[in-house]
């Protein structure tokens, strides 16, 4: 491995250690039936849309698809295009790597569902880097970032998400 690569992944590790267990709060906003239905439409789930719109018309609570919170990648309004990284990600979606020549993929996820999310709820999220571990792979070293997000609404836990992000050095590309 080149010294540059060592510096890049070493810097990711150093930033992660500085951020570890520092929780950031986020207001995700008030979720709507339209948010749920568009999410379901992207999954070709027209049956969900029919049920949700019928519940809405009847004045019944409309519950979200169970992985709606976990499946939504970002709750930011988002920066303009010129502030995205070359791979399209924003700084928030790529913790500890701002300005570094890296690429990243998702390693996996563990989701625990709490109280069902219903339309009209204001959702809040708390997010923190939990750990960072350097590992050796067939194509070189990489860093595994572990990130936890807890979603709450009206004082109740809606979902808890533990995910791993694989960060690879891209300085030679």
């Amino acid at each position: 491995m080149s010294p540059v690569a060592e510096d890049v992944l070493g810097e990711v590790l150093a930033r992660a250690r500085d951020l570890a267990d520092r929780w950031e709060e986020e207001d995700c906003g008030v979720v709507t039936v339209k948010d749920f239905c568009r999410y379901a439409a992207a999954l070709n789930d027209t049956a969900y849309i029919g049920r949700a719109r019928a519940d809405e018309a009847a004045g019944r609570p409309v519950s979200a698809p169970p992985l709606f919170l976990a499946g939504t990648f970002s709750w930011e309004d988002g920066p303009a295009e010129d502030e995205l990284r070359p791979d399209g990600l924003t700084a928030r979606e790529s913790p500890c790597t701002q300005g570094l020549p890296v690429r990243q993929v998702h390693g996996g996820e563990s989701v625990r569902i709490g109280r069902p999310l219903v339309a009209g709820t204001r959702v809040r999220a708390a997010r923190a880097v939990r750990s960072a571990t350097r590992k050796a792979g067939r194509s070189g070293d990489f860093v595994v970032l572990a990130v936890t997000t807890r979603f709450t609404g009206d004082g109740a836990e809606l979902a808890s998400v533990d995910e791993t992000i694989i960060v690879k050095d891209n300085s030679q590309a």
Partner: protein
Amino acid sequence: MTTPGESCPSRSYSHSTVQLFRFSAVSWNAHRIHYDESYASFEGFPGTVVQSTLHGEMLVRHALDWAGPDARLEAVSWRNQATAVAGEPLTWRASVRSAEPGDGGLRLSLDAAIVKADGTPSVTGTVDLLL
């Protein structure tokens, strides 16, 4: 249907490039590997890459569909093993790991996987349901 070790009927499907784009859009995911084929190629992928969270949805949706309308998701976890791309034939497979009484119903845990055409697992995980 709820005996530990019993297999669920497998489900075959694929994701179109349009679906990957729409899922990226609705989940506010601008990562270019999911909708920009030339960028995905630059990163060494043979096509636009299926989102990890879309794999998670497929693990859960096929499990809920198999378990019936009274089933509720309690938890899911998965690990990405091999990249899948748009148009690639994929198969959902699952088997019952455990079935125990809980919360006034039946708590089912499934070992589930999304498998590529050559049998390589793209994603492996567990889905926990309450019936």
